[in-house]
């Protein structure tokens, strides 16, 4: 019951962050949602992903500035600081699976990108 409630709450709390065209294909951008920093990415095929912007290896809010690519078909971003690669789908670090960053729901509504961090 709690889980259902939480899902319902999350989907209710979509925050518009930018227009879809603000995002470069295969590049990320940082957005501020309340006091949280979220890294949003637009991949080559037009899909969107959202991760925490905090790089757990370097302790800096920089993941949005990494190079976007693929590892075995899975979309990834490499930290700009020390190049650890994270899955855009799961947030898990490909080079060190014991480390992960949070992922957030993201969608486009009428050309506006929205994320849910609640």
């Amino acid at each position, binding site marked *: 019951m709690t889980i259902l409630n939480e899902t319902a709450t999350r989907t209710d709390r979509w925050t*518009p*962050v*930018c227009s879809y065209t*603000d*995002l*470069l*294909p*295969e*590049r990320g*951008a*940082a*957005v*501020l949602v309340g*006091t949280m*920093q979220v890294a*949003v990415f637009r*991949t*080559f095929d037009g899909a969107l992903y959202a991760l925490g912007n*905090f790089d*757990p290896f*370097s*302790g*800096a*809010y*920089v993941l949005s*500035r*990494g*190079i*976007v*690519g*693929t*590892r*075995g*078909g899975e*979309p*990834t971003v*490499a930290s*700009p*600081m020390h*190049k650890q*690669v994270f899955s855009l789908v799961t947030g898990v670090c490909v*080079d060190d699976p014991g*480390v992960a960053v949070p992922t957030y729901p993201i969608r486009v509504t009428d050309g506006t990108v929205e994320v849910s961090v609640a």
Partner: protein
Amino acid sequence: MRLVVAGHGPTAHRLIETLVERGFDGTITVFGEEPRPAYDRVALTSYLSGKSVDDLTYRVPDGVSLRTGVKVVSVDRAARTVTTDAGYTEPYDVLVLATGSAPFVPPVPGKDLPGCFVYRTIDDLDAIREASRDARAGVVIGGGLLGLEAADALRGLGLETHVVEMSGWLMPRQVDEGGGSVLRNHIEALGLTVHTGAGVRSIEAGPDGRVAALVRPDGEAVDAQVVVFSAGVRPRDELARGCGLEVGERGGIVVDEGMRTSDEHIYAVGECALAAGMVYGLVAPCFAQAEVAADRILRGSAAFTGADMSTKLKLLGVEVAQFGAMSGALDVTYMDPVAGVYKRLFVSDDATTLLGGICVGDAGPYNTLRPFVGRPLPGAPSDLLFAGAGTTSTDLPDDAQVCSCNNVTKGKICAAIADKGLTDVQGIKDCTRAGTTCGSCVPMLKQILVKSGVDVGKALCEHFAHSRAELFDIVSVRGITTFSQLIAEHGTGRGCDICKPVVASILASLGRGHILDGEQATLQDTNDHFLANIQKNGTYSVVPRIPGGEITPDKLIVIGEVARDFGLYTKITGGQRIDLLGARVEQLPAIWRRLVDAGFESGHAYGKALRTVKSCVGSTWCRYGVQDSVGLAIALELRYRGLRSPHKLKSGISGCARECAEARSKDFGVIATEQGWNLYVGGNGGFTPRHADLLAADLSTDDLVRTIDRFLMFYIRTADRLQRTAAWLEGLDGGLGYLREVIMEDSLGICADLDAQMERHVATYVDEWRAAIEDPDKLRRFVSFVNAPGIPDPSISFETERDQIKPVLIPLEAVRS
């Protein structure tokens, strides 16, 4: 020409001999302090075993006026005369100082007692022989090469012989501790007593006033009636000091590559000279110096730029050899204490390059391997220890540490390859963590894969089966202008943080538009993406170009004002410019605007591109300078600015052989000569320091620029990703000779192409900062948050240290838990 030589030892003899052989047509006057002509000092010990003075003495060439037993005591540089201890004055046009060295006698109480000697001249040996007639035991103080020679002599004279060596083992300059212990076993087996790690407290006299004992610091007395000091030598530079010639801080007469002192009429050679930053005590480098000086006196252009200090000798019946470096990233050691054999080879961190070796008891590898120092290994190191060059069947031992960051051995890597069926470096990284930290062992990981029977090819990453050089050719020949086109036609997937910057760099090298144009922007590392260098707290640093390090007061003031107004930390860099640190992304365009308005441009500190061309003050101001190094540095920096390459490029220009710009540590370095410029390539500081190699000498400025153009373009075309020129040159099949053929003799017929490519680069250069601030589309990216452009990143804060900002870091542990 009247040539005067002060000193007559082996080096002076070699100089005179060379001059006479080559037809020197002036007069040669030599003053020798010893009562006899020069003799072979290396064979000195054989004098005690029966050779006569005549056997050892060199023949003085006809026509040379030699005055033995006469010492030069002063030089009048203005009058160009020397004065001898007999009060005689001799004029010269050219003076050569070959005064040699004096044995160093440590200030030990009793050092001047009768029975104490040094070991340098025939007179010394006569005295030692005389004193040994009534002696039981003798001590040599100093366990180096010469000390063991002396010990051999005392033993030959029938004395019970001790060797006292300050450091932990014998011959510390030629062998390491392991080799020293094997050497000690040999020497003790001959009946000598070795005291290592031991100093001398005093030398005590007996009732007759002569030496009776040596007392060690621990109070133990060693019976001895003869003491020989062999604790090193000091250059005899007193003549030079007396007449105001430049001498080194620790002694030695400073000379340039032509062995010329700070007075153009005076040369210095041999053990009294400080050449290429060193005083050489071995005979071979001294002879080389003598030949260079002779060549210069005959108006040649020979240069002495340092010498191989390799040694191979037989001492007390033991073979000892040392060649190349005495340390390295990796080493292979063989030790057999029973047979008394010790062999060790040092190799580079990727196990491809031989760095040096040490042999005791069997110097076999010396002859076969010494030529391979600094070159690719001719076989597996462990085979080479036994058979010398020519075998390649085995490899590093399993317990050799390959990745020192993560302590991964070769055995562990091989096991992972075999057990998990790994086929690429990424697989090794994932399984073992080897290569995941500093990455310097990655080339070695590839080698281990190959040795394990895996075909690794040259694949850049999982997206391209090509090497960087192959991709360069594809992009260049097919005229490809985008990453998407390249990966669609020649790769798989959508790229990654390895291949994207490589392709971005290739496109930039070929002049395919601004690095932030269209799709290219997405390929760039964060530094290139923001045209600034990311720092540990996510801020960036800004480095405006200051060509050659020359800057006006007005421009300095602008930099200061910008730093003050934006609250930036400032530091002078090693490349003679100023780094402004702590800028947030949204501040960058405003900072550039101020700098660009004042006439600055991007310094490309963020790019794999030309960084700086460092220079000394040069002939405009410096009283020693022979060419305008600043002018050349500025011209070269402006010519190559913005040139994208496989890795960063650094350069230095020195206005004379004193080399104040440290040009030989640069990718391309230039040192001025009287006739033009010497070009050195492939130098490096950093993780694996390397002196640049002389590619060409005495070039005109036009020839110099053309040669550098081709060198850079050939490097850009053919190097691997992130391969500096040093590693590229070392890996180049055929090495420096091949490079010379390609870019100076056009053996591949590509020089016109290389020239055209560079001309295109020079003609199409634009300042990346200016292009960014003049393009509203690019400017929009310079925000901390795309949904809140005015808000700075709240995670970035600073505290104050030494009156400047310093990042406040987020405690990592707290966040990760």
